[in-house]
């Protein structure tokens, strides 16, 4: 019915994008035909983030900070260098800051404007980190957001939200859980979840 067309157009405004699989395949095909991209490079990028760069990197940083006061001090002073000393550097981690949770203050990281995230230590961001619900609310209602992750902080705990508006990337250093004295770095690293390094969890919390 032609009089409906106006509204159908508004509603189904961009069907071209409904099949992303086909769309991205077409893009890869034409760019490869043009000699602009190397599908092997794509494979290598994907493999890197599937197997080499992920939250284990960050957990190693945190566990070392818990175990080695000199390293923790270095991390506070120059996170980029301290983290690079463990072999973690590069894309979306060029300029790192480590922010330490304390009994007084809980840190939470967000990027309200896009999805800035410390790839070099945490890998690729989860979907929720990039989605409107988290980006809109983390800065205005962090306790409400944390509750949705199952984390309820004491009412008096200060909450510091870091909105990553520039090229600095933030790694939260969670508090070391109680009862972990004498544990090895390797064992400690297992207590450090990805979310605890974003601030939506604490270390040792059941995921």
């Amino acid at each position, binding site marked *: 019915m032609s009089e409906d067309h106006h509204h159908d157009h508004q509603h189904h405004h961009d069907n071209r994008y409904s099949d992303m699989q086909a769309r991205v395949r077409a893009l890869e095909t034409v760019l490869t035909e043009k000699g602009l991209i*190397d599908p092997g490079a794509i494979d290598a990028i994907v493999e890197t983030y599937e197997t080499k760069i992920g939250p284990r990197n960050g957990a190693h940083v945190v566990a070392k900070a818990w175990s080695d006061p000199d390293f923790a001090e270095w991390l506070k002073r120059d996170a980029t260098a301290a983290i690079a000393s463990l072999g973690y550097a590069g894309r979306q981690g060029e300029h790192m800051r480590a922010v330490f949770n304390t009994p007084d203050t809980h840190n939470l990281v967000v990027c309200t*404007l896009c999805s800035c995230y410390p790839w070099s230590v945490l890998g690729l961001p989860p979907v929720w980190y990039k989605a409107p619900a988290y980006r809109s609310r983390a800065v205005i209602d962090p306790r409400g957001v944390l509750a949705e992750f199952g984390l309820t902080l004491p009412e008096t705990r200060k909450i510091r939200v870091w909105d990553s508006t520039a090229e600095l990337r933030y790694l939260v250093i969670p508090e070391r859980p109680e009862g972990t004295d004498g544990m090895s770095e390797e064992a400690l690293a297992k207590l450090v979840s990805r979310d605890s390094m974003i601030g939506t969890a604490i270390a040792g919390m059941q995921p």
Partner: protein
Amino acid sequence: MNGPHDLGGQMGFGPVAPEKDEPYFHAEWEKRALGITLSCGAFGAWSIDESRHARENIPPADYLTASYYEIWTRALEVLLERHGFATRTEIDSGHKQTVPATPKRILAADMVPGVLARGGPCDRPVDTEPLFQPGDRVRTRNFNPTTHTRLPRYARSKTGVVEAVQGSYVFPDDNAHGRGENPQWVYTVVFDGGEIWGEGADPTLTVSIDAWESYLERV
């Protein structure tokens, strides 16, 4: 621009939905979209600032429903067209029809480890001393450009305290539009929740942004 990307303090998106044991990718095309986006970034034809602005320019309703890899892909298509690497017809059909512009670099598989390890540092030296020091009270400026900015709408015309001088970095508001890197000092500025959100704000909340020097005025 006050685009759909400027989400801080907006409402109506429902609860955050963390996914248990979320996989790295939810579909094969997401892997390819990641790799293509990074490969095309290696052309050296646009900056991260220009690519962010291309994402911000996606129509709001599309931006808010698209997954982030779709946002990347839509913006990449615009950048490829703008810089002469592919026409809209080529992108839609998936077949070469024109000779593309010449990229500064084509990313081969064996270059990937080095390129990812280097990343794209954007600290740049500046000749001036920082105007502000930790402890200084500053007020963010009020502006509403149609162009790119990294000062979120919620943090404009607000008074805060400089917590740290973070170094000097490429200025995105200029660089996104080809007006040069024009580096400036960047400061971490902390605001009380009440200063930003007013009555009813969480009294335990402070929010910080990283602000380029020209975003700030001394109070």
